[in-house]
C-alpha cells in the first residue's frame, strides 16, 4: 500500500525528511505523532504525490512516486486533508463540495443526496449548506473540507491533524469518519496530537523525529 525506503524530501533547501523507512499494509490505520517540525506534514504530502522525493524510494498504491506522471496518477486516488482547507470563500458549502468532487473526476454530477449526506454526516446542518464559506467558523470549514474528501471516497486517507480546531462533537465526528473509512476497506494515516483518541482507533503508532521514523510501535 505504502512503502518508503530511505526517503529524503526537501522543502526548498531544508531536509524535512531525512530518510524515512515505513511500510503500511492495506486496511491499516496508522497514527503519526512527533514534535512540531518532525516532518509529519511533509511525509503526508510526499505520500500524496505533491512532492518529489530527493532520494530513496516511495511507492504508494502501486505508483512509484519518483516519476512525475506517477505522482500525478496517485493524487486522484488519495485523499489529503491538509492544514489549509482549500475552500473558495465566496462559494457556498454545497458548491465547494460539489466542485471538488467533480474536479477529482467523479461522475459529472455527484448526486445531491451523496453531497448532502456527506455534509450531514459531518454534522453540518441544513441551514449551513447554502451559506458562503466566509461566513463559517473555522471548525465548520474543516468539516466542509472533510466532506469534500468523503464524497470522493479515496483509497488512502492522509489526514493531517484532522482534530485540530474542532470542538468535542467535531472530534467525535472525525473518529466516526475514520472508523467508516476503515470499515469500507480504506487505509488511513492520521497525524494527531490527540494520542488517546486515536489510540482507540489503531494500535500502531509511528513516532517521527528529526525527519525520520524514531519509533514504530504496534501495541
Amino acid at each position: 500500500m505504502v512503502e518508503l525506503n530511505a526517503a529524503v524530501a526537501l522543502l526548498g533547501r531544508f531536509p524535512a525528511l531525512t530518510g524515512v523507512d515505513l511500510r503500511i499494509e492495506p486496511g491499516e490505520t496508522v497514527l503519526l505523532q512527533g514534535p512540531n517540525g518532525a516532518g509529519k506534514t511533509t511525509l503526508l504530502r510526499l505520500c500524496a504525490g505533491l512532492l518529489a522525493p530527493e532520494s530513496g524510494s516511495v511507492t504508494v498504491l502501486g505508483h512509484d512516486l519518483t516519476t512525475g506522471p506517477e505522482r500525478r496518477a496517485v493524487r486522484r486516488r488519495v485523499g489529503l486533508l491538509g492544514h489549509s482547507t482549500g475552500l473558495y470563500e465566496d462559494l457556498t458549502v454545497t458548491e465547494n463540495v460539489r466542485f471538488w468532487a467533480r474536479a477529482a473526476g467523479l461522475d459529472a454530477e455527484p448526486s445531491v443526496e451523496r453531497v448532502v449526506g456527506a455534509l450531514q454526516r459531518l454534522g453540518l446542518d441544513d441551514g449551513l449548506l447554502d451559506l458562503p464559506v466566509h461566513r463559517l467558523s473555522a471548525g465548520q470549514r474543516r468539516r466542509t473540507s472533510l466532506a469534500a474528501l468523503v464524497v470522493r471516497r479515496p483509497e488512502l486517507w492522509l489526514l493531517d491533524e484532522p482534530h485540530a480546531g474542532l470542538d468535542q462533537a467535531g472530534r467525535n465526528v472525525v473518529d466516526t469518519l475514520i472508523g467508516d473509512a476503515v470499515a469500507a476497506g480504506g487505509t488511513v494515516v492520521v497525524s494527531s496530537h490527540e494520542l488517546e483518541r486515536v489510540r482507540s482507533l489503531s494500535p500502531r503508532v509511528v513516532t517521527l523525529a528529526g525527519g525520520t521514523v524514531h519509533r514504530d510501535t504496534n501495541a
Partner: protein
Amino acid sequence: MNRFLADARLVAAKDLRIEARSRVVLNQVAPFALLVLVLFGFALDADQRTLRAFAPGLFWVAVLLCALLAVQRSVSVEQADGALTGLRLSGMSPAALFVGKAAAVFVQLVVLEVLLTAGIIVLYGSEIEQPLLVVATGVLAAVAVACTGTLYGALASGLGVRETLLPILLLPVLAPVLIGATRAFDDALGNAAVDGWAWLGLLAVFAVVATAGGALAHGALVEE
C-alpha cells in the same frame, strides 16, 4: 478530450461564479478602468481632438493595466486557502486548468473592453467606423492577454513579491499585442490610414501561440 473540456468548463464556471458573488472585478477593476481614462484626460489635454487621436493607444494601455489586476485576482482566488493544492491533488490536467482559468479571465476582459469602448466614445469622442474590426481586435487581443496573463500568473504565484513582479514579467511580453491592437483600432476608429486587418493577423498568431504554449508550459509550473 471530453474530460479535458469538462474540467476546463468546471474551472471557468467556478471562477466566474466567484466573480459574480464577490464582484471584485466589477466593483473595483471596472471603475479603475474608467479612472485611467479620466487620468489620461487630465495628463494630456482637455482638448477632445488630442484625446481622440490618442484614444486607441490609451484604450489598450488601460486594458493592460486592468488585465494585470484581473490576473492578480485570478491567482489570489486559488492561493487564499490552498485551493491550488486541491486542484493539483484532483489529478486534473494542468492544461485543462490553464484553459479554464484563462477563459474566465477572457470573459472578464471582454466586459472591461466593452466598458472602456463606451468610455472612449463618451469621454474622448471616438467614433467606431468599422464595428467588425473593433470586435475582432477586442476578442483576439483578449485571448492573447488572458492566456499570457494566466501563464505568468502561475509563474509568479506563491511568491511573496507576486504583485510587484507580475507587471515587469508580463508587460514586456505583451508589447506586440499593445502595438497590434492599437494599430487595428487606429484603423477601426478612423484615426489613421493603416490596414487594421493586417494587424489582426499578428494578433491571431500571438493568440494561438499564447494559448498552445500556455497550455503546454502550465504543466511544468503547476506540478512543482
